[in-house]
């Protein structure tokens, strides 16, 4: 065995002394020097053990210290985010004016701000300095893209064409230094309008979620809201309703936003048909407070209101919503143009009610009145080209295009009265105001590919009230309905007056057949008056739509994807009991009161013999059997006014 191990006896003598000692140790022989070698071996083992112990302890200490530093630096980074959010929130709240020029001086200059210390106060409390820079020459620089609805290039995209900063977001790079070690964090903050429904007035929802006793489903579908609600039901914020006597109100075209409106009886009958279900209504609201009152969740039945102050609660999954290319255009909702808006998250009640700013309409192309079809019913006499009175805050009086009426509108020529005897009474034949009669569907098309650049072809305006209803002013007094609707593709339509699409109901009484009344694809409708939709459909494609009006009364059905902004009150009910009206996006409603008058079907405010007046007061927002679902993709106009939320904060690798 020894020979096999390589220690042949005859070769031992030839070994060097160390080898011989080693050989003797293995053979169990004692020889001088053996003890020294043994001790040296033992010492080596001890040394290795000690070094291992020392290394492990040092490593452990470093890990523990690293853990502590990591936690401290994370807290410092979060403190920096809180500091930034606080300053931006204050800047936003400071914009108390009625017109917010968010692209202008009110927007904080973060580049200049963070050339100064991140913590202007209390920096000595932190274990080290914190660094933030928006200078693009730095290695780790932040990007403020919070006012843009398009992505932007960030520090990751240096040297490439990538755009890693999402729309309405701030990509924040934070360096926290503790001792000699700097840890970098990246935080992503996003602005988002958090409310599906926002009004300083009262929100009333109606519709029964229960089944009838005989087992049949109720004809009134429940209203349902998915998303956060902002409401201030304290009526101290709402001015008292005016108390005009029906019939005493002059008809003032275009509609004055401060006056009540008159609608025809069909709509009111629809609403009244639903109103007996009020016992199952849900009033959403909270305590009177200037703080946002937020109620989360889905409402289809009575709910308890949760007051959470400024804390946002919600069950809405908004993940991935930035991937949409949806552009719901609103005039000025571009990166190149100015944005004037009044909706702000924290001073909504103060600014919303009477402070909507209509866009500059000088860039709109005036629409020419359509000629009636050959088989059209008699038309009203041609009105004189009376320029409509500009509503307050609506147009610039110095704008030459805004003040005069359309002198070249080819209004239909007068036709003889069916009775053949023109009325001699001036009361019976008043001069009708200018009114844009929709004989056929009005289809407006913009460019195929919507751009953010100004494009005149996509902007249209009608300088008077418009609609598909017109009145014979001579005997017999009759109202004719053309049934025409409006359809917009990549276009913006401005109507300086009411838009009355109040008769899309089929003549044959088939309630199931609904003529499209208002439909849009990547479109905006601005009505400087009241938007009336009766028995029609209201729909918008996935590209979205924005409706902006002084008042809204809608009895329609359809799937509307977009934003509805109403300066005063709104009432939305289905076209008929059982119809489904679904709004995917959001509603902002001013909450100021509105009175609706329902009169005889042949009623016209210019005809004096009014009777059987039904009057309904609206305050705030009334939803009957309407499904409202939060979708921030269709609220890009508002997103820039939303508060910042921290999506992520993570250390850089």
């Amino acid at each position, binding site marked *: 065995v020894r020979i096999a191990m390589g220690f042949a006896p005859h070769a031992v003598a030839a070994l060097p002394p160390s080898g011989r000692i080693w050989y003797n140790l293995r053979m169990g022989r004692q020889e001088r020097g053996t003890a020294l070698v043994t001790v040296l071996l033992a010492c080596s083992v001890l040394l290795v053990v000690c070094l291992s112990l020392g290394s*492990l302890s040092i490593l452990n200490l470093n890990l*523990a210290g690293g853990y502590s530093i990591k936690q401290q630096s994370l807290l410092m980074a979060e*403190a920096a985010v809180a500091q930034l959010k606080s300053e931006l929130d204050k800047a936003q709240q400071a914009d108390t004016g009625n017109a917010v020029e968010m692209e202008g001086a009110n927007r904080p200059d973060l580049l200049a701000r963070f050339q100064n210390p991140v913590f202007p*106060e209390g920096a000595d409390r932190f274990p080290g300095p914190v660094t933030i820079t928006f200078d693009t020459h730095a290695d780790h620089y932040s990007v403020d893209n919070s006012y843009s609805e398009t992505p932007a290039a960030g520090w990751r995209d240096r040297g490439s064409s990538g755009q890693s900063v999402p729309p309405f977001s701030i990509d924040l790079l934070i360096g926290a230094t503790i001792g000699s070690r700097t840890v970098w964090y990246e935080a992503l903050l996003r602005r988002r309008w958090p409310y599906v429904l926002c009004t300083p007035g009262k929100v009333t929802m109606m519709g029964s979620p229960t089944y009838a006793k005989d087992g049949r489903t109720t004809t009134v579908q429940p209203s349902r809201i998915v998303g956060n609600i902002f409401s201030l039901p304290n009526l101290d914020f709402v001015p008292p309703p005016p108390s005009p006597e029906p019939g005493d109100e002059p008809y003032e075209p275009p509609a004055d936003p401060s006056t009540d409106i008159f609608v025809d009886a069909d709509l009111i009958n629809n609403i009244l048909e639903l109103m007996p279900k009020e016992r199952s209504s849900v009033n959403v609201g909270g305590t009177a407070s200037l703080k946002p009152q937020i109620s989360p969740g889905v409402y289809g039945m009575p709910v308890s209101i949760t007051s959470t102050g400024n804390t946002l609660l919600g069950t809405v999954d908004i993940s991935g919503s930035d991937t949409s290319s949806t552009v719901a255009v609103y005039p000025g909702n571009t990166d190149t143009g100015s944005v004037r808006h009044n909706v702000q998250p924290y001073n909504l009640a103060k600014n919303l009610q009477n402070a909507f700013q209509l866009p500059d309409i000088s860039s709109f192309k005036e629409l020419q009145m359509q000629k009636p079809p050959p088989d059209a019913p008699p038309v009203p006499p041609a009105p004189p080209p009376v320029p409509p009175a500009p509503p307050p805050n609506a147009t610039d009086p110095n704008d030459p295009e805004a003040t005069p009426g359309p002198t070249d509108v080819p209004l239909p020529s007068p036709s003889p009265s069916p009775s053949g005897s023109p009325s001699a009474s001036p009361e019976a034949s008043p001069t009708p105001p200018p009114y844009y009669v929709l004989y056929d569907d009005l289809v407006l098309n913009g460019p195929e590919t919507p751009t953010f650049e100004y494009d005149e072809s996509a902007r249209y305006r009608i300088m008077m009230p418009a609609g598909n209803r017109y009145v014979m002013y001579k005997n017999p007094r009759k109202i004719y309905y053309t049934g025409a609707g409006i359809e917009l593709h990549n276009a913006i339509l401005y109507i300086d007056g009411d838009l009355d699409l109040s008769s899309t109901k089929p003549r044959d009484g088939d309630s199931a057949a609904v003529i499209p009344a208002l439909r849009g694809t990547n479109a905006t409708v601005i009505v400087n008056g009241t938007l009336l939709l009766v028995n029609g459909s209201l729909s918008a494609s996935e590209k979205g739509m924005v409706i902006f009006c002084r008042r809204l009364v809608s009895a329609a059905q359809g799937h509307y994807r977009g934003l509805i902004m109403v300066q005063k009150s709104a009432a939305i009910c289905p076209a008929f009991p059982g119809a489904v009206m679904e709004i995917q996006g959001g509603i902002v409603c001013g909450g100021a009161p509105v009175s609706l008058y329902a009169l005889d079907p042949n009623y016209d405010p210019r005809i004096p013999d009014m009777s059987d007046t039904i009057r309904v007061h609206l305050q705030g927002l009334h939803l009957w059997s309407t499904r409202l679902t939060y979708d921030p993709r269709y609220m890009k106009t508002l997103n820039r006014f939303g508060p910042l939320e921290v999506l992520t904060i993570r250390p850089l690798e």
Partner: protein
Amino acid sequence: MSARRGLSILEVVVAMALLALGFLFVLGIVPTGVTSIKRSEDIEAATAYGMELMEDARHSLPPATAHEYVLTMNQTEFHFRRELVRVNDDLTDIVVTATWSETLPGIRLVTRVQGQPAEEVSD
């Protein structure tokens, strides 16, 4: 007896001296390592509990009055102190300090949050 067999006294003395040096080295290293490991554990425990105090305060801002907590972990007595400092009308600093040794420095966790400390509730 052969001169090559057995251990010389010199050899034994040298070996014992080396062993003594080795044991001295071990005796020097082991306590330092053990202390270091203990300190690591203490730092981790203090940081973890300090973060708990921090998160607790961030979730619902307590009154600004400083509170001290004494906690024994790993056979070590830790002294925690949590303090809220108003920065301005919107921001509050939360400062958590932990000490457990008179000679070694403790840890300090500081962050800043939006909000104001809760009002003091008098008994």
